[in-house]
């Protein structure tokens, strides 16, 4: 065994970590190597002289009191951080969420044309269809309906020509827009039509 290996094993031995069987070979080396024996003695003295000083009396009571104060401050700080999620705020958030939910529900519940109404329109067409076919198969009835429709259309016509002229003549802007020659022509035509004109 080389001295370097032996010294590594001396260190492991001091820590109780010497692998099984390693002790025998180490002891065999130490019997023949004085330097390693001295090294082991030195390490044993170092190990024996190592130790931490005891804390002074009353130290741990003060230590625990100080730590307790710090933990309390830490918890208080944690609670302050948690304020946004405190009970009051939680109720406010819940109320806001409920309002939004109610709004969405109302919007969804609003009546709007749906498939049922479209189907109703289709159904109305289906109702009229046999009537139209019946009218078309009866020429007399078709002629009667045509006349009725024509009369309805005429009744809905705006005005006749004479009425249209009357409406135009009643408009002062019409007369203002005519030139003197046009006015004279209109007057002459009126006198001739009504016979109110004087001797030619």
């Amino acid at each position, binding site marked *: 065994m080389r001295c370097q290996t032996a010294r590594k094993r001396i260190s492991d031995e001091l820590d109780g970590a010497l692998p099984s069987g390693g002790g025998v070979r180490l002891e065999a080396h130490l019997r023949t190597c004085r330097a390693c024996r001295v090294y082991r003695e030195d390490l044993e003295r*170092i190990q024996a*002289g*190592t130790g931490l*000083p005891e804390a002074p009396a009353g130290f741990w009571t003060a*230590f625990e009191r100080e730590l307790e104060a710090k933990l309390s401050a830490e918890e208080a700080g944690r609670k302050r951080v948690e304020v946004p999620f405190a009970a009051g705020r939680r109720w406010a958030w819940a109320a806001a969420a409920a309002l939004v939910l109610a709004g969405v529900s109302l919007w969804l519940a609003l009546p709007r044309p749906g498939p049922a109404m479209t189907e109703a329109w289709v159904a109305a067409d289906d109702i009229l269809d046999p009537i139209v076919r019946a009218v078309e198969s009866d020429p007399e009835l078709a002629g009667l309906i045509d006349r009725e429709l024509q009369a309805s259309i005429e009744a809905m016509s705006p005005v006749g020509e004479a009425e249209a002229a009357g409406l135009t003549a009643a408009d002062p802007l019409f007369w203002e827009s005519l030139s003197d020659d046009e006015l004279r022509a209109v007057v002459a035509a009126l006198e001739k039509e009504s016979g109110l004109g004087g001797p030619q």
Partner: protein
Amino acid sequence: MDECPEASLVDDARRGGREAFAELVRRHERRVRGIALRMAGNAADADDLAQEVFLTAWKAVGSFRSGSSFYTWLYRIAVNTSLSFLKKKSREANRAPFDENRSAAVPRGDAAPGPESRSTLNELTARIDEAVADLPAHFRASFALVVDQGLSHADAARVLGCSENTVSWRMHKARKLLQARIKPFLEEARP
């Protein structure tokens, strides 16, 4: 509460039980401060670090997995908090990289004058403390866990998040450095 199994204390603490956590603090405070003292090298910083360790543990205990070992978890917080402190201190002091930094040796205010043999032991202890304080931080962490706290290489490896071989190698290197550093004193004091 004194006889209460640690697992049930941890469960209570995870549910926000301050009394259970206080009991866990009482059980581990000496060891945690010991690690901090070895790492920081002075009592004032060690006390602050120990407080910080327990505060961090309290904040994080809710995420602690009940299947794992509480003390491993707590010591890991202690080592990591100490390493962060040393890095910060190193940056503030604008020194060499933190592995190379030197911190003050563990103060021994309680060293009372006594017989010569005791005085020699105290001096040896003081020199060892100085030499340990000069170790690179990761060696010091291994030393604190294995020698000061008596953890096995396997447990120390779990705390440090490395392999057992790494812990073994660091301990070997640390001891070599310590022996070389205080060899003159050991020679003088050799019987």
